[in-house]
């Protein structure tokens, strides 16, 4: 059960200095962004905003300078992320590239891949999407069926990916596919490839609208798409190992407990200066939860900084975080009587509507609650 300990988060004065800079920047940049849009946060894509962040040096903060990075600490990066999310900044365009694709390329990519792609991510110019899920492959990731067959100078890929967030704006997908027939060990024979979405024939991107009518997801169909050998990421057959380490990065950040934060802000605003004791108790409870989650999450950032593998701790924070994210709209609607309406002129009502509609995804994306609890149970020695 050692696996479930969380060391106190390290103190970083540099990180607090960055916080002040980011706040000043966001105050100007987001002055006219309405709360309804802020609630979108890391689902809101704005390439112009991403480029400004790149110019500020707030993407690829921890990477080596030779690849466009800034060699800052994981804690400084954490502060930038949480400030962006708390303020509801539109970070979606570069989010995935900065969070997991870039770090994966840095870790396992070929020198040529690093040099051609990483500096563009750092500039806020190059966006990624994740090619993991398929129509018959959700939580059971090892069951992917998209297949790459060896050909002269590369691979011919056939198959379909779904729930691919941002594929329609992304330049690259990191595709998880099967390059060898499935054996008894399902984790063998999987490979990751960098698919150039703008310049590859045989790749079709179709929108999947979510229940709120938003277009974030896509279906990406590969029909005899040719992927050159130099686009293989890492070693052929190492896909499973790579994807597992990528997922730890996907689960550990502040986006895993701040998805509903804009609603909490608007709730406090709507309650005004003199709420009932019951309302103050409800708000205070959420403060206690977010304070604690933030501490747990920063502890995970500290483990990443030290080079530890906090996969189980990250799963635990994400599980707890999603519970609170999903509770906030339930509490808000009991404290202020309002019928949710995305078109409402009331900021609170519109943000409430947006959050109610998006809340189901909080415990699905990045690993379902059930998958996370299975991982925690493994950490407890039960599996």
């Amino acid at each position, binding site marked *: 059960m050692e696996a479930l300990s969380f060391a106190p988060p390290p103190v970083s004065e540099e990180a607090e200095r960055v916080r002040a800079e980011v706040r000043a920047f966001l105050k100007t940049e987001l002055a006219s962004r309405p709360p309804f849009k802020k609630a979108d946060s890391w689902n809101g894509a704005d390439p112009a905003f991403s480029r400004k962040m790149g110019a500020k040096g707030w993407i690829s903060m921890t990477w080596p300078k030779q690849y466009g990075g800034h060699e800052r600490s994981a804690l400084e990066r954490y502060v930038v992320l949480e400030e962006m999310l708390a303020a509801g900044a539109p970070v979606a365009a570069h989010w995935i590239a900065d969070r997991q694709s870039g770090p994966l390329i840095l870790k396992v990519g070929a020198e040529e891949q690093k040099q051609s792609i990483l500096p563009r991510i750092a500039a806020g110019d190059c966006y990624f999407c994740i090619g993991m899920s398929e129509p018959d492959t959700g939580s059971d990731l090892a069951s992917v069926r998209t297949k790459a067959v060896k050909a002269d100078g590369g691979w011919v890929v056939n198959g379909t990916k779904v729930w691919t967030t941002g594929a329609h704006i992304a330049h690259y997908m990191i595709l998880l596919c099967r390059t060898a027939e499935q054996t008894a060990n399902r984790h063998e024979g999987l490979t990751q490839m960098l698919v150039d979405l703008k310049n590859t024939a045989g790749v079709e991107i179709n929108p999947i609208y979510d229940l709120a009518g938003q277009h974030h997801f896509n279906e990406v169909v590969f029909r005899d798409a040719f992927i050159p050998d130099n686009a293989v990421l890492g070693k052929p057959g190492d896909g499973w190992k790579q994807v597992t380490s990528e997922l730890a990065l996907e689960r550990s950040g502040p986006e895993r407990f701040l998805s509903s934060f804009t609603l909490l802000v608007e709730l406090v605003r709507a309650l005004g200066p003199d709420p009932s004791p019951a309302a103050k108790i409800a708000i205070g409870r959420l403060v206690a939860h977010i304070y604690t989650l933030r*501490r747990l999450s920063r502890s995970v950032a500290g483990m990443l900084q030290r080079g530890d593998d906090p996969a189980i701790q990250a799963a635990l924070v994400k599980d707890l975080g999603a519970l609170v994210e999903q509770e906030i709209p339930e509490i808000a609607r009991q404290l202020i009587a309002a019928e949710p309406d995305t078109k409402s002129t009331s900021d609170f009502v519109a943000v409430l509507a947006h959050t109610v509609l998006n809340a189901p995804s909080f415990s699905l994306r990045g690993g379902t609650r059930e998958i996370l609890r299975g991982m925690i149970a493994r950490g407890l020695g039960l599996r």
Partner: protein
Amino acid sequence: MSDMRDMFVETASRLFRDYCTPDLLRAAATGSFQTQLWNAMVEAGLTKAAVAEDAGGSGAELADALALLVPAGASSVPAPLAETLIAGFLLGEAGVVVPDAPLTIAIPRPGETLRAVRKGDGWLITGAVARVPYARFASGGVTVVAETAEGPLLALVALADCKIAEAANLAHEPRDDVAFDEAPAQAAKLTTRQAADVYAMAAAARSAQMAGALQTVLQLSVQYALERSQFGKPLGKFQAIQHNLATLAGQAAAATAAADAAIVQAQHGAGSIAVASAKARAGEAASIACNIAHQVHGAIGFTAEHALHFSTQRLWSWRDEFGNDAFWELKLGDQAVAAGADGLWAMLTAAA
């Protein structure tokens, strides 16, 4: 966390585990003071950990001393260690020589008052505080914070000068009503610490004990799920049980992280977001965790014979001592409202 603290906590954990056997816990629950345990803690320098060196203590930081309460809570230490640590810290800070005997703290809760008036060179204390931990065994004296015309007064009152009405919490830990009727202070000093500040210190201490108890509840539940078989396999192999235990682990981790922050901030007064969050969060965690632990244990966990209740009965009591969840949540809510919608995030990130 310093290496010194790690070592200190490790030594203490071993001592607590060695002494706090089910037999000793059962004996304590009948109302007898565990003298051997107490003497061992005194010899190991635990009881006066937070007492300044010139007041006869080992001069550790209050946070280092309160860190002992996590393993103490894990072992259900049936003694006023938390209360003695806090009383010793306060008395030592005031330059009072601190005795080796057990101490307690009588801090008026909302609705209670303690007043002190000068008499000659000394002070007389009048008032009553309900449910004071281990008051009947506080042979070193009862530490109080009383109101005076000159501000708050920290005072030590001899047990013999207090009127005690015995009562206990759900875990049979003494929680006695203490009345003071012009009781003379043995030592006293005006202080800048309000009663509410000491109340927060005690809340931080309970949060630490609760974090420890939650870890034990988790450990017992995981162990039982691995040992007990039904339908031909260990309980822990059933997914429903795995997920419940994962939830329990999350609650224990959250309470522990919050308590870690609270013990560092314990001396920073009643307005500490860390302390309020820790006590509230531990209270909520206790409710969820005890539910799951008893569900996993089935009927055996509901018996007097099984050890689970040593921890769960304490958690059910401690969550309501020194402010329940709502008490601290209201304080946090007040601060959030004062910070306002646009100051809420800054308030959260400024809180240490």
